[in-house]
């Protein structure tokens, strides 16, 4: 197998506050291969966005990466000096944020923002960068790009602005795109277009994509693999068909039960009782145990490690070989 574009091993991110040290990410490991789309799902506060920010090196104090390794195409990028990680950002990893309305500087023409980014990472001339910017705008589907390039952000609609943001993220041909809830702030009708665009770009350029979302529908139709996060850990990770059709982790089962389908209209959506614990009050053992219908004593004491089950990997004591469970 070829080397993955992104390889995260045992990542831990801590936020040191006045009262306590909160561990937002606790032992997260995953890979993304070239051209692959990895979906990361979970409730808000599960650590999805923090994982994305950790990869691109944008965890600000009081937060910090306290353990683990992040490798981009085989080179470690965590704990790089600020100037070196800056060269990685935008050039080798592109990022798309949630709200396109606030992601663009309102006082700069969009063309200037794209040209600035291109020229930061390449040694193209001003005019060459401008031609490239127009090509990029055309590629992300902005009509009449040679005219719109001189527009200000407020002259674009939300969907168009997110296309501009995507153009900015891919302008240096990155190996990896991290899209942090790229459709949440958009109209439903526009969401599908943006998702399709990200998918197409990933395929065309062979870019690895990490798609953070809480929308299971988006995951199901876009991703190759999916990671389900809960309380700063990966509860389950595997190919999207398997995880959606046959979820193993009780939390993932609850989550999949929460996808509305057109077919089963009269079937009530399953709800997971309770809510995710706050970072300051994560229970010992499996963090999901207070809400889990299958929890037994061991779940309250011992933290489950990921266990391989076929193509999936699940962190749950239920899937330990039976004899050990008995002991």
């Amino acid at each position, binding site marked *: 197998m070829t080397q993955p574009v992104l390889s995260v091993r045992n990542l831990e991110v801590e936020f040191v506050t006045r009262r306590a040290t909160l561990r937002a990410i606790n032992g997260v490991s995953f890979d993304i291969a070239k051209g692959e789309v990895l979906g990361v799902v979970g409730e808000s506060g599960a650590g999805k966005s923090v994982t994305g920010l950790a990869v*691109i090196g*944008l965890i600000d104090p009081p937060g910090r990466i306290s353990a683990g390794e992040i490798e981009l195409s085989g080179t470690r990028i965590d704990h790089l000096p*600020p100037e070196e990680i*800056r*060269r*990685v*950002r*935008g*050039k080798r990893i*592109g*990022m798309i*944020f949630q*709200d396109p309305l*606030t*992601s*663009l*500087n*309102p*006082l*700069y023409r969009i063309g200037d923002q794209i040209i*600035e*980014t291109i020229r*930061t*990472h390449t040694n193209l001339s001003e005019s060459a960068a401008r031609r490239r910017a127009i090509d990029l705008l055309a590629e992300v589907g902005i009509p009449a790009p040679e005219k719109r390039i001189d527009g*200000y952000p*407020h*002259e*674009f*609609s*939300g969907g168009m602005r997110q296309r501009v*943001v995507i153009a*900015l*993220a891919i302008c*240096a041909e990155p190996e990896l795109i991290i899209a942090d809830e790229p459709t949440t702030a958009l109209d439903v009708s526009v969401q599908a277009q943006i998702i399709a665009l990200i998918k197409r770009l990933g395929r065309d350029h062979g870019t690895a994509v990490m798609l953070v979302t809480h929308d299971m529908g988006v995951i199901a139709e876009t991703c190759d693999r999916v990671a389900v996060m809960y309380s700063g850990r990966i509860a389950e990770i595997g190919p999207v068909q398997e995880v959606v059709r046959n979820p193993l982790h009780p939390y993932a089962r609850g989550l999949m039960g929460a996808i509305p389908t057109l077919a089963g209209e009269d079937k009530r959506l399953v709800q997971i009782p309770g809510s995710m614990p706050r970072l300051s009050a994560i229970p010992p053992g499996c963090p999901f145990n207070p809400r889990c219908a299958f929890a037994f004593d061991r779940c309250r004491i011992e933290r489950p490690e990921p266990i391989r089950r076929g193509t999936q990997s699940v962190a749950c004591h239920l899937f330990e070989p039976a004899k050990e469970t008995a002991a």
Partner: protein
Amino acid sequence: MLAFTLRRFLQAIGVMLAVGVIAFAMFRFAGDPVNQIVSIDTSAAQRAEIRHSLGLDDPVLVQFGRYFINALQFKFGVSYQFRLPVSSLLAERLPATLELAICATLFAMVAGILMGVYSALRRDTILARLFQAVSLIGISLPTFLIGILLIYLFAVTLGWLPSFGRGEVVKLGWWSTGLLTVSGWKAIIMPAITLGLFQMTLIMRLVRAEMLEVLRTDYIRFARARGLTTRAIHFGHALKNTLVPVITVAGLQFGSVIAFSIITETVFQWPGMGLLFVQAVQNVDIPIMAAYLLMVSLIFVTINLVVDILYTVVDPRLRSPVGRAA
């Protein structure tokens, strides 16, 4: 845009009319012009004659109209103290005040922006805290005390800078400037700092607050995610967004700077309009007071108008009626 400008323009004219009424009331009722001209033993008949010749027995409205038309032509009457037309006195003093106010504003903006940016970007350094302390003192200390302190330090003790006057002045047509001679530059340093210090603290606090605000925005985070250099982010993106409100405030403050120059000019015996005005108040020279009020109001109103229009130029969102598409 045009309607907006027009409405602002009409408002400005309204304000000027109101101030004109006050200036006229001062001119006509507070100081009886006849008493200023005649001596104690002038007979009543002579007084009446002078009164008539000055048009003071016309209906008040007629007098106001006359005052107003004269004011439009910059005729503000004759100073009681100097026996000279007020307009020529003011014109003679105007360059000194404007040069001082411009230097003070430039000082306030440059120093205020630098200190504000520094204390926003390096929040926990000792220097940043020092700036904060200075700003508290700058807001609390009366201007004249700061001026006296500077004089004591740099004129009395060290003898580096002159404590009064404009230094050597060069005539450029009707304008007189002190900025072409070394002594003129030396003379303007302390008054400009004294006058600009309050605005500087204001701008510094504003820049710091705005900068911290802007650094938290999504587009700064996105700019970082794009791998732009810290320099480009701080001094391109963040500073440009910070400067929009700062320009507005600094612009609006320019009128105050001119008005506050009254105090600074007195401390440093700076031969500007403010000193003229203070002497007028001390000597009850009503025509100068009324004219100064009109002049300063005109400057204020003009600046407000210009800043309003400038604001739309700096911020593209206000320029087009398209507005924010969803």
